[in-house]
């Protein structure tokens, strides 16, 4: 069965410091991996995705994520955090072998990022 784990409920980081939000996944085939961000009272905004190719993926707002097949991880990173990055971050996966489904995304529980001035 497909699953996503975000082991940290909250990540605290000082402004200007690097940040990492962790995500691990489990699928039977090759994964399609996504990061979304949710600001208060807003919908889910797409940040970046990994489909194939380079393991380091760059996305919106200076975020990047590294796909690690051996560790089944897709951690979200940013070299220098901003207070405005404070939000709820969701990792999601789709199994490329899920031929019976049309893009069903499986989400992690979310990680709240708090960036302090």
């Amino acid at each position, binding site marked *: 069965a497909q699953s996503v784990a975000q082991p940290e409920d909250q990540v605290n980081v000082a402004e200007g410091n690097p940040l990492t939000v962790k995500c691990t996944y489990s699928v039977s085939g090759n994964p399609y991996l996504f990061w*979304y961000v949710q600001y208060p009272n807003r*919908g*889910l*905004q*797409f940040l970046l995705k990994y489909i*194939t190719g380079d393991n380091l993926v760059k996305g919106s707002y200076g975020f990047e994520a590294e796909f690690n097949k051996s560790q089944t991880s897709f951690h979200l990173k940013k070299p220098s955090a901003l207070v405005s990055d404070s939000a709820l971050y969701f990792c999601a996966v789709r199994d490329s072998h899920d031929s019976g*489904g049309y893009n069903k995304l499986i*989400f992690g*529980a*979310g990680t709240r990022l708090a960036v302090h001035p």
Partner: protein
Amino acid sequence: EPEVTQTPSHQVTQMGQEVILRCVPISNHLYFYWYRQILGQKVEFLVSFYNNEISEKSEIFDDQFSVERPDGSNFTLKIRSTKLEDSAMYFCASSQRKGGETQYFGPGTRLLVL
């Protein structure tokens, strides 16, 4: 930039009443989805829709739920007889293709069943 829109933003209803949540997907997208997020919990897949029929549904999507694309732009989720546990944020999403294609989400409708 094209966006998925949803109406209403908030809906309060009495248990047992029918509600219809509306979505306008991005205009050239062909795949449509509904997800829900109960307060404090994960975002959960409900249903996907393509070519005017349901292509996949979760165990949550029982006979109380239905989806429809009544015209060329709207995509609706109907809950026939709401229950307290249907209280959640409901997100509509759309994508141009399947596979690794990005799903773009609307802002959500917060449904409260009293």
